[in-house]
């Protein structure tokens, strides 16, 4: 029979899986809004999901606080709970950024043309993919997925930088593109941030599994060590 402590840990794990899935749907929804024409975009469900994420984020904090105070966790339990608090924080930020993407994408005129011109759809799909991989990596705690996330994050960063560079050049020669271009640049920055948050989550999963802190270290050092 599972102990009370183990039941609490399982509860925490399932809430993180749940909040992770919600963030995944937030990102997917915001990407959908971004790639659709403004008149099609609605974005109401994204706000509802955001409220659910906020509530679960608080719930995770409460459970972690109670486990720290009452159970004094050590070793892998301690790493799991420390990571849980950080992961929930990262997920909450992903939710906020998704909402911001939806808001910004409503203000872009001739969005379809710009998205095609600057290859935005590809990077948006990559960000969708990294959130799915991140959720799976927490659930399976699989080292290979962690590595894939670091690689994908690097690609996303490069693609965002390239797209931003192209948009800025376009704005230099075409003043009509400035408003939409600025919104697109901000959206790309948000997509890049979402990818970074996913990478941070992968780092916490790595810490949970391997008891090694790799923050600010990224994949290069990790790979050379392996």
């Amino acid at each position: 029979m599972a102990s009370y402590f183990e039941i609490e840990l399982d509860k925490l794990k399932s809430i993180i899986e749940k909040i992770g899935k919600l963030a995944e749907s937030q990102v997917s929804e915001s990407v959908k809004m971004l790639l659709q024409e403004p008149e099609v975009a609605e974005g109401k469900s994204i706000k509802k999901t955001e409220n659910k994420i906020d509530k679960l984020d608080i719930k995770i904090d409460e459970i972690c606080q109670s486990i720290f105070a009452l159970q004094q966790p050590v070793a892998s339990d301690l790493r799991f709970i420390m990571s849980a608090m950080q992961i929930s924080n990262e997920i909450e930020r992903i939710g906020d950024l998704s909402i911001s993407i939806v808001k910004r994408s409503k203000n872009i005129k001739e969005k379809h043309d710009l998205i095609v011109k600057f290859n935005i759809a590809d990077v948006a799909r990559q960000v969708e993919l990294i959130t799915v991989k991140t959720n799976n990596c927490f659930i399976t705690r699989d080292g290979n997925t962690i590595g894939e996330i670091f690689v994908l994050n690097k690609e996303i960063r490069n693609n965002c930088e390239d797209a931003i560079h192209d948009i800025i050049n376009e704005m230099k020669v075409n003043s009509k593109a400035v408003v939409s271009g600025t919104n697109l640049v901000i959206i790309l920055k948000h997509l890049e941030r979402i990818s970074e948050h996913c990478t941070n989550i992968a780092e916490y999963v790595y810490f949970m599994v391997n008891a090694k802190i790799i923050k600010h270290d990224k994949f290069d050092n990790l790979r050379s060590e392996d």
Partner: protein
Amino acid sequence: MKDIKIKVNDLSLYYGEKKALNEITMDIPANKVTALIGPSGCGKSTFLRCINRMNDLMPSVSITGKMLVEGVDIYDRNVDVVNIRKKIGMVFQKSNPFPKSIYENVAYGPRINGIKDKTQLDEIVETSLRQAAIWDELKDRLDDSALGLSGGQQQRLCIGRTLAVSPDIILMDEPASALDPISTSKIEELIHQLKEQYTIIIVTHNMQQAARTSDHTAFFYMGELIEMGKTNSIFTKPVQKQTEDYITGRFG
């Protein structure tokens, strides 16, 4: 590890035919606190009692291997066991003051060691009780019976009594297990202060106490030393699965 105080090599202990400790090899550093943890019957208290040859008092016990304290094998035939116990003091789970005055409890050891001078004894009593962090509480009632003190005070008095004969090493067998949280925290604070001068080895069932008080932790299971390392490592990333299972409460 620098400055090894106690070096244990392949130490085994038998209670008759039963092997209670199996080839223990470990280094215990000087001026540090080393905690011995493990489930009941794992051999940690037996091991602790090996360090000042307390197991000699049991007729069926036999020991093989070496226990070197500052390079001297304490199980060597030429070693005087009384001198060992002078050098290696011990504090037990249950406080056990003599049915004498507070003063006499502390002065007893130095007196049987030949110190007769009252001024010198006074000095030893004061220093020892100060080191045991209980002087301010007891200085005005030194002639009262030690048995009238609270459990926590009695235990600190016993620590003071141990310090009075100037040991190098202090062994503590569950020193705070019968005490309330306030007295426990006083004992733990005391352990921190004492390690500057003494090498301390503590047996405890209280995992948080081991984590709070010790620099190194050794995990025993079924007479074997499973893992020893810095306390910080043992409680955050133990190497052995058995250690992880024990400290996270998933043993067995």
